[in-house]
């Protein structure tokens, strides 16, 4: 059913609500267990069949990418309308139909830097969850110093030839395609990098999962030996990839912080103060018995509130056309600190209940907290370490210079 978006916000809200009520399957209005998250792509199995129906319906409206232009399969909504959609979905507890690096990171960059043919070719498949993308950025020798990357990309006339290794490639073993930074000129640093796309089933691509301290393997080592890539899959100019890479990192940092990495909604985990009340206990007035822990929890909750208000402020100011670079630059740093502090406090509040690894004898949610605590240590490393973020603030925002 085609959806004609009314321009009046109230009418739009009413219509969206009606559409969601009609189209969101019942089971898609319940908290989402981690194994029912839909990442899309060739390997997607849709453990819960309703999630396939839900994704198709939402994607047909373009509402998996609400603000993308309609011509590329997006919803063509304004920011305000997208916000209303988000609020209405939250109101009914509707699941996010699609998790996707294509939606969060690659797509916005392609809309800005890709040519018409590339946008038409790749964006609709992202909207519909038909292609799952991964990001080829970090290398063994290029972490914080990302521009030091060495993966070689040679022009062979009718194609490019790629040789090298990436690391920390999120879900490379499950992705269909990769957007990748490669070196097209090794006589210069930032100006010798290009942005290229290719199929992970191409000959010469190999992935090996990396097991983390949390026990999960969301990242891979990825190897390229003589991978042939058609020339129309290079985005932007040859040697012009760094600009795209930086913009994409902004999308990454803002999507990491917009998801707050912190939401426990729908995971079976409880909020920090709930765990504290259960495992530490309360007095007759409902106050936590451990006054010291209570103060530190309140301090953290205030930090989290301040963080959320700051995200809101930067959005409002951006809308009003004000300079927000200053505010945005601190968000990734603050989000990492916030999420790590929260997990440390949760582990402390849980006591030994938070120290289970697997099997019986521990609460399921508590075991997820334990894993989440270990995983959160990566927040200040991935997507730019906290130290690099502080360098960025020092240099770009505060204008402090290097040694002369």
């Amino acid at each position, binding site marked *: 059913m085609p959806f004609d978006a009314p321009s009046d916000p109230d009418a739009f809200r009413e219509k969206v609500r009606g559409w969601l009520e009609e189209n969101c399957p019942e089971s898609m209005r319940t908290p989402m267990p981690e194994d029912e998250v839909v990442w899309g792509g060739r390997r997607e199995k849709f453990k819960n069949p309703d999630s396939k129906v839900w994704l198709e319906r939402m994607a047909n409206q373009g509402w998996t990418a609400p603000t993308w232009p309609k011509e590329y399969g997006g919803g063509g909504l304004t920011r305000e309308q997208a916000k209303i959609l988000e609020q209405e979905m939250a109101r009914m507890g509707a699941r996010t139909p699609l998790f996707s690096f294509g939606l969060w990171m690659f797509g916005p960059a392609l809309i800005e830097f890709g040519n018409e043919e590339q946008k038409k070719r790749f964006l609709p498949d992202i909207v519909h969850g038909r292609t799952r993308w991964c990001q080829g950025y970090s290398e063994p020798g290029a972490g914080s110093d990302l521009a030091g990357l060495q993966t070689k990309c040679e022009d062979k006339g009718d194609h490019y030839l790629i040789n090298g290794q990436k690391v920390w490639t999120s879900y490379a073993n499950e992705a269909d395609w990769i957007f990748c930074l490669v070196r097209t000129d090794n006589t210069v640093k930032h100006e010798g990098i290009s942005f290229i796309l290719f199929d992970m089933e191409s000959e010469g691509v190999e992935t090996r999962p990396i097991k983390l301290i949390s026990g999960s393997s969301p990242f891979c080592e990825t190897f390229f030996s003589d991978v042939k890539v058609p020339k129309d899959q290079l985005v932007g100019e040859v040697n012009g990839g760094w600009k795209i890479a930086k913009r994409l990192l902004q999308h990454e940092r803002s999507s990491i912080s917009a998801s707050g990495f912190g939401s426990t909604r729908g995971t079976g985990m409880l909020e920090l*103060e709930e765990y*504290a*009340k259960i495992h530490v206990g*309360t007095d007759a007035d*409902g*106050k*936590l018995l451990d006054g010291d822990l*209570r*103060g530190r*929890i*309140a*301090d953290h*909750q*205030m*930090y989290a*509130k*301040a*963080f959320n*208000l*700051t995200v*809101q*402020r930067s959005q*409002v*100011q951006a809308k*009003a056309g*004000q300079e927000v670079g*200053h*505010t945005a630059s*601190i968000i990734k*740093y*603050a989000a990492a600190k916030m999420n790590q502090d929260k997990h440390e406090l949760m582990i402390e509040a849980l006591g030994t209940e938070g120290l289970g690894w697997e099997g019986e004898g521990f609460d399921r949610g508590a075991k997820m907290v334990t894993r989440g605590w270990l995983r959160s240590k990566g927040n200040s490393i991935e997507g730019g370490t906290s*130290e690099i*973020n*502080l*360098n960025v*603030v*020092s*240099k770009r*925002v*505060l*204008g*402090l*210079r*290097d*040694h*002369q």
Partner: protein
Amino acid sequence: MTFVLTEDQEMLRDTAVNFTRDELPVKHLRALRDAGKNGVDREARQKLAELGFFGVLIPEEYDGVEMSMTAFGQVMEAQGRTLASTPLLQTACIGASAILMGGTEAQKKEWLPKIAAGEVTTALALDETSHHNPAGVATEAERDGQGYTLNGAKKYVQDGHHADVFIVVARTFGEAGDSHGLTLFLVPRDAKGLTVQALKTVDSHGAAHLTLDGVHVDDSHVLGAPDKGMDLLEPVLDRGRIALAAEMLGSSLAAFEMTHEYMQTRKQFGQLIGSFQALQHRAAKMFTELELTTSCIAAALAAVDSQRNDIAELASLAKARASETVHLVSNETVQLHGGIGMTDDHDSGFYMKRARVQEALLGSASFHRDRYAKLNGY
């Protein structure tokens, strides 16, 4: 939640920033201190009145300029920048709000025009120990026929050393620790039995201890409903806390800017000290705190203007965050200036001394963390 100022608010902000920069810089506070004025400057007060700052929260019908809490916050931030010692927090915010929200028509007509004109200053006489504790009031007000007789003592009353009228919180029912049973009274400075002991304080702004020894006040001096003083006091205190937090943000920003400037001029080992990464990261962390605190204060100010139901929570958030931020920044300001930061000649010390007073007034970070936890059910 609005985070963008209106044109009127921008204009007021510019006026306030320029005025405090030109007329009330830290140098001015230093001069008041050295002249033994204990932070009192009647001439400056008159100029503040002419600019309309005393009437920002007062409706036009009582001769105010009737703007908004967000507008008032801009004035407070400006005065915080230069540590200006003014009666604005106590008189234009706390006093005006208490009378506006709790006063009878006659009380409003009597006091608000005088406040707006800068003719009268007020001071809230609440705390009785060295820590903020509204429910802890033990000062007694006993019925005495035509009114009440007040007996008790008040500690570290901000602006108490020069206020013309005190808003005294006393107990008409129950005992210290009860939220119920408090009543607010308007007590003129010259009331019989009231002793004002002026204090020389670390921030050079001054304050006073009060002793109430059989002070008689008429019924017409009761502000708000007897016994239900907390219902008036809490929202008034929250406005004061938010305004004070805005002032503290101004102080934090100014101290940070001074430090930032110094990092880009001071050289050691042949390098600007601002080029050392250990110091850069400390500056970046301070900047992060300032950004987060800025958001809390803007949100709290806006919450008052739109009469949201989470004003109390946001007031505690703003005051606690502002306290932590001004504490951090004022300490780092002294440290990053090195030896010069320890000298009286430099402004660093003024920011740190004022910071500790700001932190303690109307509830410390610890007080507000406790309150925030309670409001959130743990």
